[in-house]
């Protein structure tokens, strides 16, 4: 049986976690991430001869992951199931004053994902690339084929929306705590 060449395996080993994380951050639900990661690497495998080395491999893979995640998010069943509902968001966040345990950390991450799911896709992508992948505005602009000004504008809007949602979440969970007392 034919196997992918060893250098592709090395690329896969070095970047699998990155691609998996990126897909999650781009709004892919956990049960679907493995399928989509597979899709990203298969695409990379067949497009490898076209990769000209003008960007980092990770940047190139992120571009593929972004397109795959975008198609995924446009599909109707996913749109219905992605968590953006306020009650779900607050349930995910729980009491944010106590996030020392592993389960609390997971709940916080779910809450953060739910907030990201509320952002329009172009804003979300820029936000993830800048805040979590720590790419520069210029690199993001190159990757997305937009101007740096557009990147900054999307980042500003995404940050405003993120802060708005966090504030709402804080108010909601604080209110919940008062009622409980």
């Amino acid at each position, binding site marked *: 049986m*034919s196997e992918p060449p060893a250098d592709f395996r090395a690329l896969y080993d070095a970047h699998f976690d990155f691609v998996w994380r990126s897909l999650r951050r781009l709004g892919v639900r956990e049960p679907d991430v493995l399928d989509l990661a*597979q899709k990203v690497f298969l695409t990379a495998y067949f497009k490898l001869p076209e990769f000209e080395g003008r960007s980092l491999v990770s940047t190139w893979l992120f571009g593929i992951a972004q397109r795959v995640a975008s198609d995924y998010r446009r599909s109707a069943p996913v749109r219905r199931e992605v968590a953006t509902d306020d009650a779900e968001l607050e349930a995910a966040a729980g009491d944010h004053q106590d996030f020392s345990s592993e389960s609390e950390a997971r709940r916080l991450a779910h809450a953060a994902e739910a907030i990201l799911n509320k952002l329009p896709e172009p804003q979300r992508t820029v936000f993830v690339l800048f*805040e979590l992948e720590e790419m520069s505005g210029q690199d993001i602009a190159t990757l997305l084929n937009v101007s740096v000004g557009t990147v900054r504008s999307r980042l500003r809007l995404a940050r405003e929306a993120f802060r708005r949602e966090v504030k709402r979440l804080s108010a909601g969970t604080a209110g919940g705590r008062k009622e409980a007392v």
Partner: protein
Amino acid sequence: MADPQRFLNQISDADEFERKLLGSLQRVQPPADAKSEAWARIEAQVAAVALVSATLASTAAAGSTATAVASSAGSPLTVTPLVLKALGSKLTLGLALAGSVLGASALLWTPFHSRPAPSVASVAPPARATLPEPIPAAIATEEPATAPRIAVPASERPAKASAEPNASDRLNAESALLTQARAQLRRGDTAEAERSLARLRANFPKGVLGQEREVLAIELLLAQGNTEAARRRANAFIAAHPKSPHSPQLSRLAGDP
């Protein structure tokens, strides 16, 4: 103009909760076995595409219907991305076909215990092909609804007058029957799935998709509640195909108490 400070940076104007919420995303990591599982699937798909592409290339170039399949089965086929790219339109067809072909093995990756149950199956041991079998007329005419719809360029279609189906036709028919068996198993119709697998074994005893057929047969045994037989068959499969991309998953089944 410089980029703003990142929220996660302590000197940014983000407050503590905003940073902690955002920072929680950095701790999200893939499950331990995710990498190996995804790699097994990728290997299987690359292998299937290579096999199909080689079959089509030999069919189109030499008019010899079985050369590429025979050579790929006899010795490992080395297909690089460049080679696949060079196959051009044939690769497109290959990918489309591989998608339908691998749909059959995709069932393997869903949890074994989530399958439906009852009765017994008897399906042949795995057989990797050297030459594809001729298409039985019954299959070619009985399964139009499930046969993959693949747009084959006119130049690659067999002449209508030709009585001998080519390798691509045979693979299509085998794939269609396998896809049908898988769909039947997925919807819980184990009796029909068993019949389809029996037809596969009878009509394509040395089929190109022999491994996939055997994996599906093992899944059928599980669905029927015949765990011991499934485990025996899984062990036999692993012994016969230790390097198969299906073997790691089957190993887990074989190792389960």
